[in-house]
């Protein structure tokens, strides 16, 4: 098993935990786990999916154009680098 297939866990405050890989887009991972997160553009420019990152870090596939605070991420255009703890505004 290579690193990219390795299952990592995302802890979503008040919701639960989901399993994904570093190769999976975070928004898609959340959706396939049934977490209904708000989204619009899915390209990082609208900011609708803005989410608090409490622990861990992510890599962006597209440079986010929407405003995000230092402790926030845009799940639509990033992949987790490892286990994360996030708080999703539902």
């Amino acid at each position: 098993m290579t690193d990219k297939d390795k299952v990592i866990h995302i802890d979503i405050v008040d919701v639960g935990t989901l399993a994904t890989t570093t190769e999976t887009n975070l928004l898609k991972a959340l959706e396939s786990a049934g977490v209904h997160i708000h989204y619009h553009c899915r390209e990082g420019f609208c900011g609708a999916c803005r989410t608090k990152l409490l622990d861990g870090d992510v890599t962006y596939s597209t440079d986010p154009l929407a405003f995000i605070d230092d402790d926030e991420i845009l799940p639509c255009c990033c992949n987790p680098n490892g286990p994360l703890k996030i708080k999703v505004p539902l």
Partner: protein
Amino acid sequence: MKYTTFNQQSTNPLVEPMFFGNPVNVARYDQQKHAIFEKLIEKQISFFWRPEEVDVSRDRVDFQQLTDPEKHIFISNLKYQTLLDSVQGRSPNIAFLPIISLPELETWVETWSFFETIHSRSYTHILRNLFSDPSDIFADIVVNDEIKRRAADISKYYDDLIFATQLWQTLGEGEHTVNGETHVINMYELKKKLYLCMNSVNALEAIRFYVSFACTFAFAERKLMEGNSKIIRLIARDENLHLSSTQHVLNLWAKGKDDPEMAQIAEECKEEAKAIFMNAVAQEKEWADYLFKNGSMLGLNKEILCQYVEYIANQRMTAIGFDAPFNVESNPLPWMNNYLNSDNVQVAPQESEISSYLVGQIDSAVSEDDFADIEL
């Protein structure tokens, strides 16, 4: 300070504030104080589209089949969208350009306004298709009380800032009496007007537009007026970007990453700014009342639209550091996401009904029956 179209003094745009610094001289983008605006320009230009590319000819047939309350909803909504873009097509240029000090921000504002004019032209494209003479519709925008009330609130903050800037640029700081009315012009007052104006623009792009989008897409959910919806999707994608830009400006100020005096004003005027949003929410709810006064439509009524206003207001207000004022658990119109997803905006000409690409552009739909009387 007098405005000059080419400031002959050497300035360093890397240390200028976004607004009320030295006027811009060289339009250079090799270096940027706030690189985000250059990125927004690039993104916006990549979205370029023309209303004429979208075939709206089938909407005429759909429109005839709508019930009277639905026609009222559709046309009133379109009038409101026309008003919003009439304001947005000119106001950022007139209000912000004379006081901007960064070349990348100046060009962003011009790009932004230019796209709003594309939106305005597309409403004419839609209406010309629905009516042989759309004059009555356009004329009503200026006399309809429901629309006028909104127009007054939307343009108020712009007009205030523009007038104060004009006084400042011609007479400088001080107390000026114009037509018997005394105006106090100083940097603090100017910046305060700018801050409130930016909040009002943000509320317009963040809340008001989305209420109108919801109405448009509610028709599309029933496979009605799809040409119109295709155009509004393109508009919504642009508006998403414009919204991002005003959120950036407000956050750069509030977080002290630009002009320290603006950070102080943002703190002092927080309640006033919040009131602008709350007022926009209240007005949009009143508007929902007017839209549905003759009856609702399948999939959308006054209550759901009002819930959506609150939901979207929560989202937008938290994005600029305010608390969420409403208690709305989840998105009352989940299908909105599909229309606002840029992946779903048709970009390849050959895939959509783009009349400038298609050869037989009148035949937007051909069924097998059309060939029934053809014999070989």
